[in-house]
């Protein structure tokens, strides 16, 4: 807005009582906030319902909606949590989930960082085609790989062990991880690398002393993505680990709470909430990197 047109708007506002600019701004802001709040509510309502349900008994859950519990008389119970914590091997599953999720995050993140560095700042034959093929892998559906991969793992004796899931998650996660990190690395100014080259830094030194420290936000956001995906994954774990309780992660154990006839539904709500704690902790502790990571490349460091 130029000064002249502002002045004209003010005069017009005085004379004809037309809509002043500040009101238009307010209304725009209001619309934005209404949209934001309604989207947030739409996302939070199911979770809130699950949360309320986890404190209700089976009878109430199956006969009335969760919102009726919010009006008196209150009939909340901790039975569901007690049952889940006592009777099912939730502790083992918790440990298993960590045993799966931590290596299945660290391995692909590390490999992706090296690969992305090579793809962006090292010259080698067929680099662009290889990168294109890698990005192409993003569209391959997970399910298409189950049978060949399971055959391979079985012949190697890996089926039902943690390394099988680690490898699977590494493979599934790498294309996206490399893609994300490449985009970030590419945005680093090339002068830095040339300067480091003249200063006498070798490839590995550049990687560890310059690229990694500058890429903390991108790597942190990648770690969150990968960790959450692995932690919440049911399908991959079920396929390569089977249903054996001593290796089952939380997701498998929680899913097993409900039998095929739908019994145990009330326990599921409590178990789901317990399994959510870790992702929430991860997210909140790394969220400032998360936002910066999503903005990666758009803002120069």
């Amino acid at each position, binding site marked *: 807005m130029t000064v002249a047109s502002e002045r004209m708007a003010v005069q017009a506002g005085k004379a004809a009582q037309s809509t002043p600019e500040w009101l238009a701004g307010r209304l725009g802001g209001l619309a934005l906030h209404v949209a934001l709040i309604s989207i947030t509510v739409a996302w939070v309502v199911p979770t809130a319902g699950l949360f309320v349900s986890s404190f209700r008994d089976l009878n109430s859950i199956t006969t009335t909606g969760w919102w009726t519990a919010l009006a008196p008389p209150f009939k909340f119970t901790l039975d569901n949590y007690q049952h889940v914590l006592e009777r099912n091997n939730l502790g083992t599953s918790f440990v298993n989930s960590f045993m799966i999720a931590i290596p299945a995050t660290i391995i692909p993140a590390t490999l992706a960082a090296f690969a992305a560095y090579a793809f962006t700042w090292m010259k080698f034959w067929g680099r662009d085609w290889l990168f294109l093929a890698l990005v192409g892998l993003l569209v391959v559906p997970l399910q298409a790989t189950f049978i060949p991969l399971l055959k391979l793992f079985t012949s190697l004796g890996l089926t039902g062990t943690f390394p099988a899931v680690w490898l699977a998650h590494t493979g599934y996660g790498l294309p996206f991880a490399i893609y994300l990190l490449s985009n970030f690395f590419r945005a680093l100014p090339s002068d830095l690398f040339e300067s480091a080259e003249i200063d*006498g830094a070798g490839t590995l030194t550049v990687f560890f002393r310059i690229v990694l420290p500058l890429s903390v936000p991108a790597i942190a956001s990648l770690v969150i993505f990968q960790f959450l995906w692995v932690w919440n994954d049911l399908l991959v774990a079920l396929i390569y680990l089977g249903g054996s309780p001593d290796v089952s992660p939380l997701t498998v154990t929680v899913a097993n709470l409900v039998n095929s006839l739908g019994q145990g539904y009330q326990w599921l709500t409590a178990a789901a909430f317990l399994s959510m704690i870790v992702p929430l902790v991860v997210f909140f502790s790394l969220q400032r990197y998360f936002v910066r990571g999503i903005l990666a490349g758009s803002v120069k460091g």
Partner: protein
Amino acid sequence: MASVTYDHVVKRYTADLTVVKDFNVEIKDKEFMVLVGPSGCGKSTALRMLAGLEAISEGEIRIGDRVVNNVAAKDRDIAMVFQSYALYPHMSVYDNMAFPLQMAHMKKPEIDKRVKNASRILGLDNFLKRKPRALSGGQRQRVALGRAIVRSPKVFLLDEPLSNLDAKLRGQTRIELQKLHRDLQTTFIYVTHDQVEAMTMGDRIAIMNAGILQQVGTPGDIYDHPANLFVAGFIGSPTMNFVPATVQDGTAKASGFEVKLPKPINSTKGTLGFRPEAVTDRVVDGGTAMDMKVDVVERLGSDQFLYGQVGGDQVTARVDPRMAVQPGDKVRLGLDTRTMHYFDAESELALL
């Protein structure tokens, strides 16, 4: 301390994209050499080949007596200051300057001594713990210089180091760089597109255009005796006046005036070139004079520039600042033919 020699150097990206063509320059030990030219003329590429950041397609580059074509950048004993400074954003000023020394596996006390010394020279003592983003543009620029100084290299390469500074700081840094060059007693090679930087700083200037070296010489030499039309137009501000002319019997005839040439030349069609300061309000008896219809008057206090038409040609004149002229006026101006140039239409080479 070393000389640098470009010996028939060529940089070719593809068969029909050659950015540096048969480049020959000898830069003497301890010299301040400026490579200057419009953007895309190959000056940066020439510097980057010396730095080891670009491969040399043909020819040889020597530092001292050593051919460095196949020597890695870090082993060439050079230091480079980038236009963007290329400071490591996550390292403190101290670590930025210490980085090349750490890479050379130098002992800690020696590193400390050198960094402290460089920061004292550059006035960075109080900023050693800061990160680059907490520094002003000028300070960042000095850190980049410091990172080059600590290595005490044989040759300093500077790639447009002042272009990110504001005008006032640029002038100041220009002087500081010259002082630094005197103190360090090292060969400096400085790339810029700014002819003022080239004129003020260089011991010698090498002017490039379209990948071809046009002329090498001292600033005075190049200003007074440009080798061709391009150099004449590139150096000097406001630019030299160019007026098309035909030559007959030792007299050059332009659309608005005639001038007797001081010596016979072998050309009939070409361009007369004379700097604005050769066109003055002093008309000498028997000298060359011209009538100008003034379009624009520019008063700078110390100078007064007139832009206008002489015959059918655009001419700029530098006249006495007290001369009273208004746009639209017709004035009679004198031409000092002693500093006049003549460029052949065909070859564009200076014949006068």
